């Protein structure tokens, strides 16, 4: 065991009433590659920020090489030998590479050596960071960190969005730390990478450290088990709720929305699927697996680089969200403020898509609008005590307004992107119900959610995305949390559930 290089114990951090970390600890030995694992919201990123001085903890000790440290800024963390490389490179875009190095007081020759080792020996240091591709910036960021030979190197999703050859280089360089005096804390959603690279893993759940796992065959399953916790593991029976009618019965000739080999941006590589009328299709994915790009393409905010999009059997190319809306496809985003005019009234917000259809110089038929708005409010049971400004409504009621505005507008396809983020449990239920009702009325729904337990509640069928691709598809009643989480980490299905059918196409019978 010898002595520890870095030890954090009893770390607590509250943001107002919300506890981000309740009791987190992590202990790193010298020469170790240590994974930090946890589901979304488990507190990983907060712990990282505390270790690197970007955030101050409410309580807890951080001990580096046997000395207690209070780290107040990234600069201070750097001086004490703790350097981090974040998901978004900490490179200033308007400075050249050389100037960026000067900013962090990094020795240039050591940097050059590291960059060459990472496979970018031809890098021109006089170029502005703005003009370099993201993968190069991440390599520069890593090389800059390696160049000062930190005691503890903290890598947060370092390999995400790196091409395969560079990933291999990076992993090789990281492996080189094993058995030295220095250590690496490695954070990644890619379980296979973690299993292949790390010595031990600390698992966080709901702000607590719930276990430390030695890497050995089978460790990945143990880690997933710890991430889920005891409640979800036993199968608590709620997973059987996907109510309603078999959607297969009312299938149309062509699917409402069909996507073939869609690729866009850096993260969406190849997605193919179909959504039929009357169906709720779930989408489960960890952060940054391409779902953002997928929704942006489907809602007309982004143009695909490749692939085909068909609406009701005819090829569609959206240049603007207005095109998608005209084709009857609307997006309900997680961030309500991105969809609503927060300072305007409920009536104006619900009426907006309708008024958009009025001729540019036409008058709005106020009577008709009032009736339409009232119908929508009644149907969604929106609490309208604070009607005059949408921003004074609760998050749940705001989300209802976002949905309500499309009800009268002839929309037949809904794209829900994490619609229940930050909404209380009762309103969540109402939103699930609403989603089901929309489908019953003949709408096609694509529902991405970061809360995996929502999928069996609201969906008929679900897709799983990983690394920019659809990696799995299953009927919702088989999509319990452990299965989804494993698939979302790019792992093969466990032997226990009926695994053979997991990849069967076509969804429900």
């Amino acid at each position, binding site marked *: 065991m010898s002595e520890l290089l870095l030890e954090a114990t009893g770390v607590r951090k509250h943001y107002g009433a919300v506890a981000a970390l309740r009791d987190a600890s992590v202990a790193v030995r010298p020469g170790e590659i240590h994974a930090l694992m946890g589901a979304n919201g488990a507190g990983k990123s907060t712990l990282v920020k505390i270790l690197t001085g970007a955030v101050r903890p409410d309580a807890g000790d951080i001990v580096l090489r046997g000395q207690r440290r209070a780290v107040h800024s990234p600069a201070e963390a*750097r001086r004490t030998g703790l350097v981090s490389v974040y998901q978004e490179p900490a490179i200033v875009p308007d400075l050249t590479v050389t100037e960026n190095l*000067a*900013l962090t007081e990094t*020795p*240039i020759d050591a940097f050059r050596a590291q960059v060459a080792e990472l496979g970018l020996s031809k890098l021109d240091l006089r170029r502005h960071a703005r003009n370099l591709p993201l993968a190069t910036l991440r390599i520069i960021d890593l090389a800059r960190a390696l160049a000062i030979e930190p005691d503890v190197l903290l890598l947060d999703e370092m390999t995400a969005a790196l091409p395969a050859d560079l990933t291999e280089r990076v992993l090789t360089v990281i492996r080189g730390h094993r058995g030295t005096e220095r250590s690496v804390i490695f954070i990644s959603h890619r379980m296979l990478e973690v299993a292949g690279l790390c010595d031990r893993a600390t698992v966080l759940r709901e702000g607590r450290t719930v276990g430390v796992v030695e890497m050995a065959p089978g460790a990945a399953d143990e880690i997933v088990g710890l991430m889920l916790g005891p409640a979800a593991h036993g199968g608590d029976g709620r997973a059987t709720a996907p109510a309603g009618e078999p959607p297969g019965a009312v299938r149309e000739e062509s699917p409402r929305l069909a996507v073939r080999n869609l690729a866009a941006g850096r993260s969406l590589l190849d997605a193919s699927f179909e959504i039929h009328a009357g169906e709720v299709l779930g989408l489960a994915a960890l952060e940054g697996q391409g779902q953002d790009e997928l929704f942006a393409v489907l809602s007309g905010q982004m143009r695909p680089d490749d692939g085909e999009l068909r609406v009701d059997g005819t090829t569609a190319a959206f240049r603007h969200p207005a095109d998608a809306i005209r084709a009857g496809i609307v997006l309900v985003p997680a961030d309500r403020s991105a969809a609503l005019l927060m300072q305007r009234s409920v009536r104006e917000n619900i009426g907006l898509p309708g008024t958009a259809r009025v001729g540019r110089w036409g008058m709005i038929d106020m009577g008709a609008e009032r009736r339409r708005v009232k119908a929508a409010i009644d149907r969604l049971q929106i609490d309208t005590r604070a009607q005059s400004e949408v921003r004074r409504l609760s998050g749940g009621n705001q989300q209802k307004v976002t949905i309500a505005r499309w009800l009268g507008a002839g929309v037949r396809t809904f794209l829900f992107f994490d619609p229940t983020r930050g909404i209380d449990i009762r309103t969540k239920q109402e939103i699930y119900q609403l989603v089901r009702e929309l489908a019953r009325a003949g709408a096609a729904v694509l529902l991405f959610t970061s809360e995996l337990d929502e999928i069996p509640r609201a969906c008929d069928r679900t897709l799983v995305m990983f690394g920019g691709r659809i990696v799995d598809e299953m009927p919702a009643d088989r999509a319990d949390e452990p299965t989804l989480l494993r698939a979302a980490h790019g792992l093969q299905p466990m032997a226990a559930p009926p695994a053979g059918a997991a990849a069967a196409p076509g969804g429900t019978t």
Partner: protein
Amino acid sequence: MSATAGTRDEAIERTSLRARAARFVQGDTWTIALIVIFIGLLVFTRILRPAYGLDALAIAALPVAFAAVGQAIVVISGGIDLSIGSVMALTNVTAAVLLAGSPELSVPIVLLVLLLGLVIGAINGTLVVLSRVPDIVVTLAMLFVWAGAALLVLGTPGGGSVPWLREITSGYLGIPLVPKALIVLLVVVGAIWIPLRRSRLGLSIYAIGSDRLAAFRSGVDVARTKIVAYSLTGLFAALGGLALTASTGIGTPIPGPYLLLSVAAVVLGGVSLAGGRGGLLGPIVGIYILGLIRADLTFLGMEPGLSTVVQGVIMVAVVMVGAYLTLRRQAA
């Protein structure tokens, strides 16, 4: 730091002069285009009015040029200083009052006024950092504070100056092509900016304007850098105020149109209002161009109202062409 700077300087020295010139042309296309426009305008002016002297232009432009430099620094750091005209007025009247009282102490007085500008800038910056209110709001409020302070110092135009202030800024140095006011401007700005630009502090000013989070994570003290940027702006505003004292010989408590001119020059000079991009040479040339255009329109006999409209149109056109060229270059 010293070791890093050493290797960096060596790296720069290793590249030949020609390569450096090529890089300057590539990186600073906009500034070079501005210089070309300026020379074109100058030739045009000489044709219109063969007797037109560069020194008149340089003296008239000196206070605004200092303001433009100050504004450029704070804009590069991601902020904006709306109080710059008021600070110029305050330092202008302070200098005029003190110099009229005891002209024999002119050198300490000049230094004191510069210190005053630095302190005022530091106050502006500290308020922006501490209050977390947007820069534009804080400095708008301070515009009134410093303007009021200027009126308290001197209620009506008055005070005085000393001859040497006028002497170092008027006329030519040797040949009648190099106005003293231009030399003063370049020497002062160069003496402050060139060492700064090569230091970590200068990099930090660009860094916080370009990407605050990346700068913070790179170990930059964002708050301190911001205060330094505002202090420098205050210092240059004080230089502008002193230039006013020098050229007019008195103090005027009501601010001139320097705020808007400084912002116009910053935009024209290729400094991004979003921060992080641009230099100081561009805004300086921008001020000279604006001055020449105004002179030319007068020589052409255009009435003042129309000439102001034309100036605005020219500015929008130039900036639009610049934005268009930048976009095309990025697309290519």
